[in-house]
């Protein structure tokens, strides 16, 4: 029997009078002195229970797991995990997009650190091939230049083919010629002096380091990244608010349980844990759905990009916007984000419960 609670003599007799089983151990309860009764009662009850298989029966009835103090059915679970799933999907889409744009911006910045272009505009009385050769000599003589590549007429016409067709002949139009200059990113040349040298010796030559164009694109990309993070923050905030509303609804729906827990001496942390456990389980279900859906979507996108990369449209898209494929580490971060949303849900639920319980902190409000 319970360490501090003996079955008082007399009471046992009075109570066991109503016991339908009429067990033989009852006689011991009614005759033993209170001090010794406890041991006798406990021993005999154990023996009796074992004798009739009650212990096993109760064990089976109880099962291995403990029933939840807060019933799962009371939490509007399907609605909540569906919302969390949608929020997780949106968060993953946002984060994936941010990672792709960020990756593309990095590629642009990397490109500008590796290449510049010398453009020579055709002028009267200037031999273009000679001007190209002189520009190459000047470029290769400068420090920090790894190499040059002159776009011949065929390559130049291919570049212009989408706009001017495939019948462009030399002399038809004053088409500028290009020299791609590969530079050493670790030892960048002095672009200003190179520009001056070209202007002095090659009429019509201009050095284009793409900086203005790429700076604009990078600024746009960075803006997109920050906007993405802002959207991600809003999605997470909306998730938290949803969980707070759901938790408050669950608390209101389980007010009697909270009251009972209070009057049996439960601490706030114990009560919060009961709700937190449920919400974490619900959130795991939701983030699994939303996260996996997002991962599948990005994977399908990568397959589509791979399939279209050999087409002219794919080449043009890739030239402007990069591969638009979620980088490898992106899948890891999507998984981390999904799990974080589950953890965030549990923490938010715990916070909401504590907040609610603090509101009923006033003696008289919690169990009245």
């Amino acid at each position, binding site marked *: 029997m319970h360490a501090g609670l003996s079955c008082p003599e007399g009471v*046992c007799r009075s109570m066991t009078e109503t*016991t339908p089983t009429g067990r033989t151990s009852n006689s011991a*309860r009614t005759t033993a002195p209170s001090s010794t009764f406890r041991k006798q009662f*406990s021993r005999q009850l154990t023996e009796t229970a074992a004798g009739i298989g009650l212990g096993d029966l109760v064990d089976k009835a109880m099962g291995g797991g403990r029933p939840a103090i807060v019933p799962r059915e009371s939490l509007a679970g399907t609605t909540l995990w569906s919302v969390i799933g949608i929020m997780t999907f949106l968060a993953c889409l946002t984060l994936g997009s941010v990672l792709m744009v960020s990756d593309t911006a990095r590629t642009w910045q990397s490109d500008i650190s590796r290449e510049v272009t010398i453009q020579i505009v055709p002028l009267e009385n200037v031999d273009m091939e000679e001007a190209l050769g002189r520009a190459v000599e000047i470029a290769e003589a400068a420090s920090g230049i790894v190499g040059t590549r002159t776009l011949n007429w065929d390559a130049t016409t291919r570049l212009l083919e989408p706009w001017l067709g495939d019948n462009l002949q030399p002399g038809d139009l004053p088409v500028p010629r290009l020299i791609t200059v590969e530079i050493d990113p670790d030892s960048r040349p002095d672009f200003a002096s190179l520009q001056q040298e070209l202007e002095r010796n090659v009429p019509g030559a201009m050095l284009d380091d793409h900086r203005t164009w790429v700076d604009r694109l990078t600024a746009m990309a960075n803006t997109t990244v920050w906007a993405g993070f802002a959207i991600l923050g809003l999605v997470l905030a909306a998730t938290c608010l949803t969980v707070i509303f759901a938790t408050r609804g669950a608390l209101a729906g389980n007010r009697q*349980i909270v009251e009972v827990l209070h009057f049996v001496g439960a601490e706030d942390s114990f009560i919060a844990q009961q709700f937190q456990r449920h919400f974490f389980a619900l959130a795991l279900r939701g983030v699994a759905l939303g996260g996996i859906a997002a991962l599948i979507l990005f994977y399908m996108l990568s397959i589509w990009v791979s399939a279209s990369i050999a087409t002219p449209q794919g080449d043009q898209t890739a030239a402007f916007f990069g591969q638009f494929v979620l980088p490898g580490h992106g899948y890891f971060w999507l998984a981390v984000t999904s799990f974080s949303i589950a953890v965030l849900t549990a923490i938010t639920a715990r916070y909401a419960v504590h907040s609610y319980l603090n509101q009923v902190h006033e003696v008289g409000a919690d169990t*009245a």
Partner: protein
Amino acid sequence: MISFENVGLRYGEGEEVLRDLSFDIGPDTFQFLTGPSGAGKTSLLRILFLAMRPTRGVAKVFDHDVSQIAKPDLPMLRRRIGIVFSDFRLLDHLTTYENVALPLRVRGRDERTYKQDVLDLLDWVSLGHRTDSYPPILSGGEKQRAAIARALIEKPDLLLADEPTGNVDPPLARRLLRLFIELQRSGTSVVIATHDLALMDQYDARRLVLSGGRMQIYD
């Protein structure tokens, strides 16, 4: 153990429902709290159970001023008090066993350390055959006994029972009374709130009679 000095209680701006209550409840004592409906019995029990602060006077429970008790201290003090509500307040989704074991579960005890105690206690209150039954299918008397078992499982220093015999037939009421008397003899102070005169006549105990918010004490 319990000490009230000029305690008054009012709800909002209404009239006082308890007025100038001054009394003590010592250890190992038994008392009936009685009075007509609306006399303030339940309000007084709420103060005793730390569910309400008095609006004036000094109410001390286990030497703690009820008006000054900090929130972190409430659970530990409540664990020394067993309470039986007139409406039982059993959790319908838990079995009788789980309801009775609830106070031990919230204390973080390992079930293996108390399972047998709970089963013994259920057997003691003649609910051994109802361990895995849910409250909705229990009779009023069985619910009452389950609520009592839950209040007793941790051998409280103070037992508060609000109309504990209100849902049982007279023979069972007598048996429950004997249970409370024996509990008091084993070291628990017992306060039984009732207006069942027949029940009170069965045991010569101190009577705290509330009427119009004031208390008369008959030792």
